[in-house]
């Protein structure tokens, strides 16, 4: 064990979010140090995807603080409720938090390579040739080097999701948010995506992963968070948590997800 933990990559405090009269998140806090892999578990409707979407402000939380690499996202009360104070800051922080979506969300009118260099060239304003070189390396890493000129529609689901992960990596993010990255895949394609994610965890990437893959949560992540009805019901290192479920509900959840 280290005496000094690595710096905090992401700090989320007391997030609340309601849709109409339904309170989806009821005060969730989460701290991820650099290199942490946090699996977020929970039944559908427990608020885990909303939490992830609140972190990069695809949803605006009603209350709570978000700090990315030491920078707090400033919010103010606007005419239509709470809003970010500075849109530019939101854009910059989003570019530091790459998200991987359940249904890939690749840009269908661009090839895989174009998908990868879009952010680096147009958001980060990096040199195009440099970006291409880096994108090709990333595609090599996720096993898609020979598919760089394919359009997303010409790839399998697993290949699309690996391309989407490479697109996220191309932004060189401080933390990566995975929103059920394997839920839309055929069972036989889940493995290839999980292998890529495991490799990322091993190279020390900071990852927040909303998932139903218990194997990944148990074997890859160093922390597990179990949400129930918008609250953190259980949290801790996976070994302890899976061996001795602290609550009855978590025990039942695990029993329902035996693999």
């Amino acid at each position, binding site marked *: 064990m280290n005496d000094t933990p690595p710096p905090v990559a992401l700090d989320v405090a007391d997030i609340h979010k309601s849709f109409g009269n339904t309170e989806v998140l009821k005060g969730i806090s989460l701290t991820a140090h650099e290199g942490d892999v946090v699996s977020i578990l929970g039944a559908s409707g427990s608020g885990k995807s909303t939490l992830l979407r609140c972190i*990069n402000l*695809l949803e605006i939380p009603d209350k709570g603080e978000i700090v990315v690499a030491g920078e707090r996202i400033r919010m103010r009360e606007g005419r239509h409720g709470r809003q970010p104070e500075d*849109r530019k800051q*939101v*854009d*910059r*922080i*989003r*570019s530091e*938090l*790459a*998200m991987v*979506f359940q*249904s890939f*969300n*690749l*840009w*269908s*009118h*661009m090839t895989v390579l174009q998908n990868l260099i*879009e*952010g680096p060239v*147009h*958001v980060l304003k990096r040199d195009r040739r440099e970006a291409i070189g880096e994108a090709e390396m990333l595609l090599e890493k996720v*096993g*898609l080097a020979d598919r760089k000129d*394919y*359009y*997303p*529609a*010409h*790839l*399998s*689901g*697993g*290949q699309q999701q*690996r391309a989407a992960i490479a*697109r*996220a990596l191309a*932004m060189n993010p401080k933390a990566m948010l995975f929103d059920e990255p394997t839920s839309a895949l*055929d069972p*036989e*394609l889940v493995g*290839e995506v999980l292998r890529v994610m495991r490799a990322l965890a091993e190279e020390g990437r900071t990852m927040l992963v909303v998932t139903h893959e218990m194997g990944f949560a148990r074997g890859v992540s160093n922390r597990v968070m179990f949400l129930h009805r918008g609250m953190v019901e259980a949290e801790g290192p996976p070994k302890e948590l899976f061996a001795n479920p602290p609550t009855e509900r978590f025990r039942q959840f695990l029993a329902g997800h035996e693999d």
Partner: protein
Amino acid sequence: MDFPFLFNTTGQLLAAVPTTLLLFVESIAIGGVIALFVTWMRVSGVFVLDRIARAYILVFRGSPLLIQMFMIYYGLGQFQAIRNSIFWVALKHPFECAVLSLALCTGAYTAEIFRSGLIAVPEREVEAARSIGMSGFLLFRRIIAPVALRYALPAYSTELVLMVKSTSLASLVTVWEITGVAQRIMTQTYRTTEVFLCAAVIYLVINFILVRLLALLEWRLSGHQRRRRDSLPTDAALEGTPT
């Protein structure tokens, strides 16, 4: 068949082609800019702008183009204020009046075509762009516009073809484009069939070229919707490829 007459007629009509093309190009360009504005007003989420845009579309899409053209050419000149304004420099010419009314009309149709393209842009792809820090004009230029344009193109192609034909209405406000010239030859010779047949063929050729160009553009913009030459026939087969 009186070939010398057909030859002579065709020659005179071809001389009017530049006028027709100029009517078309100018009205499409101005109408396109109007359409962009009106589309933006329609989707702005600002109630007043949205209502103004809807009213504009209702009026110019809902009433006959010929009447709009008459009102602009014969109607506006009745007002002393307009005759005294700087707009009179343009509005006293039939050509500019025809361009204006064609542009206003196609602007209304095109705004709705653009809006249908915008609606078709998958929200997921927009969200992906936002999630890496794109917003505002960059997001529109790089992600929304190319996809929306692609979706709008088939309907927009039809609008362009219709516009080529609509320029013939300008003959009724004394613009000497193809139809106007055809009518003049007809009144001089009374050979209706030959003259208008020649005119129709010229429109047909213009539209044929236009349609081919648009098809080429559509083909270039839809690589992602074609099957790759080297790709396997089914999804299942693709998913089986070792990686």
